[in-house]
Structure formats: C-alpha cells, structure tokens
C-alpha cells in the first residue's frame, strides 16, 4: 500500500542557518533541515537521530561536501551521511531516512508520512 504523505510547514527561512542545520519536530519525530546556499537545490532534510548513538543531534553536525556530494558529519562519532541519499559513508549497512523539502515563499515545507490517515487505513 502506498504511504499517504502530506506537506507541512515546519519553519520559516529566518529559522535556517546558512551552511548548517536546524532541527524540527514532526509527527514522524525529529528531522534535521540543512540549508546549503551554495548548492542547488539548497535544502536537505534527513532524520535528526544519529543511528550510531541514538541521540538526536545530526542537525548540529558540520556540513560540507566529499567528492562533490553534500554531507553532514555526526557531531558525536564523526561518521558522514550523504544529505541526498541518507547513506553513511563509513558503513554501507547504515543509513538515515531522508525527506523531501521545499521552499514555498517564506515557509519551509517538509513531506512526512500522514500518521493519522495511516492509522485509519490500518
């Protein structure tokens, strides 16, 4: 069955920090939103939870690029995650969830699973 999703405004442009990340709370849990103004597209969203420590910290990592791919480094144990695919560069078996994100005027919209409709469908 196809997952129902919806686009939700999670913050505004003013909340973003250029070349860095912020965390927002969604129905799916904490999500990290990154703003890299020198790339196109400039917005990325991945789970805020670091799979290695279980802590909610990925938005606080250092961003950059490795071999041209946008990445964030976990602030705890320094593994890198590809911001586009969620793949961990140091460990093939680990990845984090990615989310679609877009700019609508001044608002940042995030596509997350529609938890309530999910529950009804189940």
């Amino acid at each position, binding site marked *: 069955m196809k997952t129902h999703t919806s686009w939700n405004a999670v*913050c505004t442009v003013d*909340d973003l920090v250029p070349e860095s990340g912020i965390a927002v709370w969604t129905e799916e849990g904490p999500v990290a939103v990154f703003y890299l103004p*020198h790339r196109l597209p400039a917005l990325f969203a991945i789970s805020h939870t670091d799979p*290695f420590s279980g*802590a909610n*910290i990925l938005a606080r*990592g250092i961003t950059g690029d490795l071999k*041209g791919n946008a*990445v964030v480094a976990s602030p705890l144990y320094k593994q890198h995650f590809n911001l586009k695919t969620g793949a961990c560069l140091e460990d093939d078996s680990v990845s984090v969830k990615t989310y679609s994100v877009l700019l609508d005027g001044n608002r940042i919209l995030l596509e997350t699973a529609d938890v309530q409709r999910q529950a009804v469908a189940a």
Partner: protein
Amino acid sequence: MSKKTLIVIGNGMVGHHFLEQFVASSKAADYEIIVFGEEKQLAYDRVHLSEYFSGSTHADLAMGTTGWYTGQGIELRLNEPVTALDREQRTLTTPQGEYNYDELVLATGSFPFVPPIEGREHPHCFVYRTLEDLDAIRASAHEGKSGVVVGGGLLGLEAANALTSLGLKAHVVEFAPRLMPVQLDADGGALLRHKIEELGVQVHTEKATTAIVEGENARLRMNFSDDSHLETDLIVFSAGIRPQDTLARTSGLEVGERGGIVVNDQCTTSDPHIHAIGECALWEQRIFGLVAPGYTMARTLASVLNGDNNAAFTGADMSTKLKLLGVDVGSIGDAHAQTPGARSIRFNDEQAGHYRRMVISENGKTLLGAILVGDNSHYDSLLQYALNDIPLPENPETLILPENQGGAPALGPDALPETASICSCHNVTKGDICKAIDAGCADFGSVKAETKASTGCGGCTALLKNVVDCELEKRGVEVSKDICEHFPYSRQELFHLVRVNGIRTFRSLIRQHGMGQGCDICKPAVGSILASCWNEHILATDHVPLQDTNDTFMANMQKNGTYSIVPRIPGGEITPDKLIVLGEVAKEYDLYTKITGGQRVDLFGATLSQLPEIWEKLIAAGFETGHAYGKSLRTVKSCVGNTWCRYGVQDSVGMAIRLEDRYKGLRAPHKVKMAVSGCTRECAEAQSKDFGVIATENGWNLYVCGNGGMRPRHADLFATDLSDDELIRTIDRVVMLYVRTADRLQRTSVWMENLEGGLEYLKQVVLEDSLGICAELEEHMAGIVDTYQCEWKTAVEDPEKRKRFREFVNLPEQKDPVQQWTSERGQRRPVLESA
C-alpha cells in the same frame, strides 16, 4: 628625473590584473600610477558574480583591497568616470578634473547588449553585469514570483540560476534553436535543456521578443513573433556583450566595424601611447569575452611596458568548463567541427544524462575539439590532447567511453609533454612547473607562488596539484600534507594565506585557494585559524557553520546529546559565594556535578535550550566561559603557593590567575594546558602541561611542551629564573609560534619534536630571536588579549545568537524523547539504549 604618469581607465578584473603584473616589474618605479573606476566598488570577481545572491559580499568578491593600492603607491579614483580624452595634449577629463598621462591603458571592459525591443526601458527590466544590477534585481524579485532571462548563453543560464536562488520561477528565452549555441551542438543543447528543465527552469527556444507590455497576471508580458506570449514579474537581458569603446571612438582611435578598440600583438592601439586590454580590445577582428584571455593581454602589456620587445598576445584558447545550475558543461576548441575534413565521435547516454563529442582531424591523429554535457570528468584529459597536439590513441573513442566499457583512464600528469599548458590564465607549462620544483619549490603553495599558476580563474587547481605531486614524487619528495580534499595546503600554509592576505571568512579562503564546499576537517581548522588571526566572535554569522558542535553551542556534547558546562575558575580559586551559585544552578537544573582534574567544576546534562538560561545566571554571578569546548587554553592549575604554604617561595595562585586571564579564549591548533607550582615540590604537576611554571627563589622556571593523556610526555626545561614579565613574554612567543606553525590537532609536544632542531631551535627562535620575529609574535598576542570577549556573555545578550539554542525550532516546548534519566549515588545520569 621626474616620474612619468601611467593612467589605467577601468578597475575590473583585467585592469586589476594588469596592475598586479606591472607593479612587480622593474620599470614600475618610473611611473606615477592613477586608476579610474566608474563603479563605486573596487575591482571584483565578476566570474563569480552570482555568489552575491547566495551570501557573498563585495568584500568576498573583491580582487584586492584599497590597502593594497595604497601600499603600491597607486592612486585609486573610484566612482569617477572619464568623460573625454584628448590625444594630442595627452590629457583626459573627468567630472572632478583634468589629468595628464604619458601612457594610457584602456581596460574599460564591455556593456551588456539589450536588443532594441519596445518596452525594454520598463523599471523591472535589468541587465546582469554589476553588483548594482544585482541589488536592483534582488529588490525587484522581493515582490515577484517569476522572472525571465533573455538569452540562453553561458551568462544567461548563470542569471537564471540566480533568479532561482532568489525564489523565483525562472524562464529562459533564447532566439536560437538551442541553449549555449556558441559552445554546444544540437544533441548537447537538448540534453542541457532537459537537465535544466528538470531543475524547474523553463526553457523557450526560437523565440524572438517583439514587445514588452504591462501584464495581466504579472507585472510584464512579453510578446513573441510567433504570436505566443509569456507573463513575468521581471526580465533580465543577457543577450551578449558589446565592447565599451566610447572614449576610443570620440577620440578618433581606430575601432572595429562592430565595435572594439583595434590593438596589435603588443595590445597597443593606433596611438602608440594608448593600449587596450580585455573585453574592450579587438585583436584580429576578435573580442575575447572570457577572463583568461584578458589576463593574458594584461600580462603581455605589462611586459611590453617593461621593455620586453618579444612580448606578444597571440590569441587565446576559448575552451570553457563550468557548472550551470549544477549541470556540468564543457566545450573545447573546434566544438562544431568547422575544420575542413573534421570528423566526430559521439557518446550519448540518455539514461545517465551524459553526452560527449570528440572532433578529430581528418587523419584521425589529433583532437580538434570536444563537447561535454552532464559530466566533465573527461574535460582535463581532452583539453590536454587538444592544446598540446598529443597524438590520439589508436581507438580514440576510448577517451570518451565510460571506464567500464573500455574507456581509457584519464591522462596522467606524467603523460603530458613539457610544453603542456597547465594554467592558461597565466600561461604556465608543465616545463615551467618542473623548473620551479628544480629551483627549490617543494610544495604546492610555493609552486603556485613562484609560477602564478592557478591564481587566475582557479580552474586548473586540481590538475596543477596532480602535476606538482607527480613531479615531487619522482624526485623522491614525500607529498601531501594537505589538510583534506578541499585545500591543497597544510594548516601552517593556510594560516599564512589567511594572515598575509587578510582573509576573514572561510568562503573567501576556499574560493581563492581551495575547491568544493569544505568539510568537518577543514572548516573547524580554518575557523580556528580565523579566530587566532582576527579574534572575531565564533558565532558571528560567517563563522557559525565552521565550528564543531562544542564550539557552536559553547558547551561539551555528551553521549545522549545533552551538554556539560565548565565555567572558568582561574587558578582554581573560587569564593564561597560563587561556589554556592554553582550549587544552586546545578540543583535547579538537576545537573550532575563533578570536580575536574583542572580544578574546575563540570555540570552535566543541560539541554540545548537550557544553555543560555543557565549562562545568564552564571554570568550574573560573575562567571565567564571556561572554553572547555574549544581548542584553546583550558585551565591554569596551581598549588596554593607561598601565601599559605610553609614551603612555597612564590605566589603561584596569583601567577596562575594572571596567565589564565591573559591566554583565555586564544584559539590554537589543539587544547593548551598550563600549571604553576609554588616550589620545587611541584604539587600542581606543571611538568605534565604544555606550559609548566615552577617557582624558584629568584623567579620562575619555565617548562614547555609536556602533556598527559594517551602519550604522556614530561615538559622540557626551557628557561630559568625568569621575572614575572620575562615569563609572560617568553610564553607569549612560544604560544604564538605554536599557533602559527603547528598542524591541525597537533599538541605542543609533537609540534616541538617535529621542528627541525627541536628544543634547541625553539630556544634560539624564542630566547635569542634568531628569526627576528619575536616583536611580531608579541604584537599578535597583544592584539588577541585586547580583543578578548566572554563568548557566552556576547551570545546571551544577542537574540539572533540565542535563536541557535532551540532544540526544535517549530516546537519550543517539545522535550527530546531519547533523553531519559535515572539516579546514581544521589545524582542524575542518562539512560541510553546504545544502538
């Protein structure tokens, strides 16, 4: 002999480059130099103009500084257009006055061509050339939803990218049947169009605009000759450039039929005292609209004016490699196969979105040109084949096939002939690079400085790096002290670049000297270097994204994502009242409390959003940040000293406090620890510190470069019986030398061991001033001391900086659900299911 006057009209990239070259030549001393610029700003990097929309400032884009001009004795007259030129009297006129010249250089550049369309004067119609144009576009975009770029060439697509970054729905309108008609063929243009449309930019080809009128649903409406139309809120014209040759025309210099100041191979015009370079110059009926040929002309003219009779401009390679809206595009030489007998080989992978075309000579021996769309990884190799007439392999198609389909590996630097041009901006060949290395250049930075290679557009940085590494390796030199893939430099070299060039942001550093966007290795290292040099607040907007999380939030992250807080307690001396405040704050926020090895108190378990509140309370009680999170001075440990101790011979607590207050906040390659013992019994364990001070009957003995940790090392005795001031002066010098020359994350011990000559050498430099740098080191240190600020105090007082401390920006009340707690020995500690 009185000096002659050289006047340069135009302060753009080429004009600036000419000055850089000319002032370095021997004849420069014979001239007074005056520069006129029409724009208000100093010359800036127009190639990267679009970065102005993504946060770069004029300072980031500037080619030099006004200080540089002053230092060279050049009179810089900006915002002063030259209105008339009298060749007979050799004078020129501006609104401010009249000036005489002996030699005149026209570097007036070009202006954007706006096709004569009815309605083009509408206030929401723009061109894309100067920072002022960009300011106007930004203002117009603020209220708008969509924008059109007229012209699908290189600059037009760049402009479309800029409109997208301003949040507009962007359209490109092109008269020709495809995008980038000059550089690409039909297949390449089609693929580029497909890729760009995927990114949300709509492309309209074969459209001729007939009129611009008021729109119905948007500000403007463009009517096309095929009776279709398009509504838009703003229009940017990018339909080509025209040489700015007005002064030449009005003064009767020879100009081309379609514009351009006619010059010969020496870049001299029909008047022997007037020269023209860059986009305003017409050489053999050609205008060169790229920066590299402009630089070549600038260099030629500088040599000519310096008396070099052999200097000549002989045309330039117009190959280009760029990323447009994230899509790789490359065009080399005869891309359209116009050479008689030329034949093509094409590789077109629609699945992957890669298109490659090689144009080869009739006999199949040489590469004449190429087109690349979607993947530029073959560009460097192909360019070398084309520029150097390297004979093609038997199956030339292997050069553009993917490697897993029998493609040839990229042309290694070893395969290039000595004559291969590596840097076309500065015309540096592989042979020049080898010569520089044989003459003693032993790393990338010095080759670059010696040959000027890769200091123009920077496109050859990677290739140059490969050639240098390869040649060094051949000579048995161990290479790569590179900090990471983004900078071909060691930390020490980066420090030097930042300091000498006055670079103040990561962005300018990586744009001028690196590649890519940076990473978690180079960003904190550069952040630390910038702090060591300029001491700006680490949470200033430009510096925020450079810091490790501990520096960003000025606390130490623990395994569950909460933070610990260590206020500064200089020398370990604390009043009962302050101790009570620590207790009260810890109690209020239920913080796990532990005494550290450095005579301080560590408070664990604060959440991100609690940090500013907690610090407000600590600051109100007189505490300052302890920098436990930074690569900086941590603590100066001390014993109680002669104030109380019956064995003490000096006031060790007093000295510890003095040292801690002096060096607090200084950013260093790694953490720095110090200690002061009041007598030889050494209760403060000073010999295990980076800087250990032990009291004597006559003053202080200084020990340096010790540490505890994984690889403990006793500090070495460095100087004996120093007075208070001598002690501080000596530490100033050693600390600063360490900050300037150590590698990233290198403690003082390893740094000193790696110095050629070790401890003895360090003594000569610091105690005998053998390099004559001690005054500078002390001055640098004094500057840091003078600009100290408590980072936490500045942060809690600034609402913008406090915004960073929200755990979830959309739900301030939301608690982090993974942070769960239990109790142990009467205090809280985290429960965390380890993954």
